């Protein structure tokens, strides 16, 4: 084996340019694989970020009774342990911020037409620490310049033909199920990546809702954010841990992480990743064709050498091992190079980000548009897979020509010029 390895290494060294070009082919494939995978994950993460920051938050908390009636968005079954819950959340180190919300059903009218809407009562002082609606707003986020301020989706505003500064009438059932209607002034229009949010949602403050809905500070929902982790899986685990600990401490409460709330999104993302994986495997296969070609050339250049070795009694199997070793070493070189370059490129994507908007504008990834800067993610398992794939593919690519070499007629190989 020592002699085989020596001959293989010397041959690789002797044909250093050819070896280098093959190694670079694999390295390029691996770099693309690692970078694209990170990019895909980054786009998913950006879409998830949008989902968390606009609608789902990291974890939503309701009472168990409320969950049963949630479809009708009742002004009932509030969280009566609000003070102790917030004290618990404030002391939890994994929780970055939290806010209260209460949802209700209503109708919004421009005095001519009325449209059904989902209303959300928010606490302006803490809502922006969990959600970032204010970043997708035309106008102001509850400036407090007047009473009865309202924020509505831009698509809804278009349908009602109203704009910032206009008055609209909101009708809804109060907590005690009596009809109420009042005029609100529009201070902001939401133009977010979530079409539902733009089309049939409005936001008012607890201060106004306490009067308009006889709310008496009824809180049906607590939304919280955990600290962002570069690794999505770790962040998801932390959310689940927070949710479980809340349920353990408050038996009447039920939590749901963004993963449960966005189950459909994750199903689509999974399918998309499978397609992405096929695409990236194709890149690696193309690289393996380069290796195949290199080993094949190496075999043809050294047919006579094969004859010499076999005339000395070397078995065909040993000849095959020798050429496979060359493929293996080339693969090892290329994969290591690819891992290094891929890691550097990935570092750039992780720490500097990729300004997607500058290149492609808004990108729709599985129903949740992404904009802004995409950040990558370290995926050690994917990098390990890519590395092993590069080495194994290169070794296997050498197998066919190596097998041919081992089966050649010795006399013919010795006569080969």
């Amino acid at each position, binding site marked *: 084996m*020592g*002699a085989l390895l020596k*001959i293989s290494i010397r*041959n690789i060294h002797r044909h250093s340019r050819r070896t280098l070009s093959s190694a670079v082919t694999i390295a390029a494939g691996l770099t693309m694989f690692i970078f694209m995978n990170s990019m895909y994950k980054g786009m998913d993460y950006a879409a998830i970020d949008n989902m968390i920051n606009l609608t789902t938050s990291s974890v939503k908390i309701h009472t168990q009774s409320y969950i049963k009636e949630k479809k009708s968005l009742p002004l009932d079954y509030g969280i009566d342990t609000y003070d102790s819950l917030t004290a618990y959340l404030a002391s939890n180190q994994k929780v970055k911020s939290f806010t209260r919300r209460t949802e209700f059903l209503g109708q919004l009218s421009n005095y001519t037409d009325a449209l059904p809407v989902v209303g959300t009562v928010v606490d302006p002082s803490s809502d922006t620490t969990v959600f970032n609606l204010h970043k997708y707003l035309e106008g102001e986020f509850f400036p407090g310049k007047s009473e009865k301020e309202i924020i509505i989706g831009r698509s809804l505003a278009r349908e009602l033909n109203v704009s910032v500064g206009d008055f609209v009438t909101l009708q809804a059932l109060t907590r005690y199920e009596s009809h109420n209607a009042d005029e609100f002034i529009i201070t902001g229009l939401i133009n977010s990546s979530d079409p539902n949010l733009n089309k049939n949602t409005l936001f008012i403050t607890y201060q106004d809702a306490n009067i308009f809905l006889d709310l008496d500070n009824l809180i049906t929902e607590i939304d919280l954010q955990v600290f962002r982790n570069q690794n999505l899986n770790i962040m998801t685990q932390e959310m689940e841990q927070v949710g479980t600990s809340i349920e353990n401490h408050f038996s009447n409460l039920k939590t749901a992480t963004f993963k449960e709330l966005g189950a459909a999104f994750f199903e689509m993302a999974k399918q998309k990743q499978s397609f992405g994986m096929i695409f990236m495997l194709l890149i690696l296969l193309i690289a393996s064709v380069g290796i195949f070609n290199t080993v094949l050339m190496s075999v043809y250049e050294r047919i006579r050498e094969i004859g010499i070795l076999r005339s*000395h*009694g070397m078995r*065909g199997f*040993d000849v095959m091992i020798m050429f496979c070793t060359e493929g293996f070493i080339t693969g090892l070189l290329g994969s290591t190079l690819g891992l290094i370059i891929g890691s550097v490129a990935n570092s750039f994507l992780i720490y500097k980000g990729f300004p997607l908007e500058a290149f492609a504008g808004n990108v729709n990834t599985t129903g949740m548009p992404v904009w802004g800067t995409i950040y990558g993610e370290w995926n050690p398992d994917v990098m390990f897979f890519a590395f092993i794939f590069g080495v194994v593919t290169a070794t296997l690519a050498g197998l066919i020509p190596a097998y041919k070499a081992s089966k050649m007629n010795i006399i013919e190989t010795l006569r080969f010029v």
Partner: protein
Amino acid sequence: MLVLENIKKAYRKGDQIFNALNGVTAEINKGEFMAIVGPSGSGKSTLLNILGCLDTPTEGNVLYDGAELGKMSENELSSYRKKHIAFIFQSYNLIPVLTVRENIELPLVIDKVRTKKEISQKVMLMIEAVGLSGLQDRFPRELSGGQEQRVAIARALVKDPLLVLADEPTANLDSVTAEEIISLMKGINKTMNTTFLFSTHDPLVQKYAQRIAVLKDGLICSDERK
């Protein structure tokens, strides 16, 4: 020790069958320095290939110390070749990426029987025997033709083979170097009692050979000892 019994070899070329050997019968004893001569196409190389276990006869038997080669499998033939047979080629056929020392030790490394120390000692002895002391770390490209053939001889002899088969070993050498090489092999033949079998056109080899067999149309038509 080596017995050829009515060796026949036929090749198929397209629709035609070409008979390279038509029934060669001979005995080659240990320590002989024998040349097989004859015109091109007479079957010299075919005979050497069969004797070297690189090819098998269509008919007949080859017996090495009683072992019948025709009954051996591919792997057994490889193993037999590895232990007992060595080749010296017209174009030296050294491995270009290995040094002189590594080329010479190659058969022993492939054999995997001797220790590193034994291999090293044996190789240094052979380097000295063929007059290449001081050149052991050079690569084939750094040697002259004569030096390359000396390496090939050392490589052939390093495993103490029963039989050394030399196919036109002087064809690529000038007359002075050719004589040096033949003289070297003759010396080794005398001192080590190694059997040499040449396929050659070279009168110089014939001059040194103690036995000359003339092959014509696949048959030995003359076999004379000096």
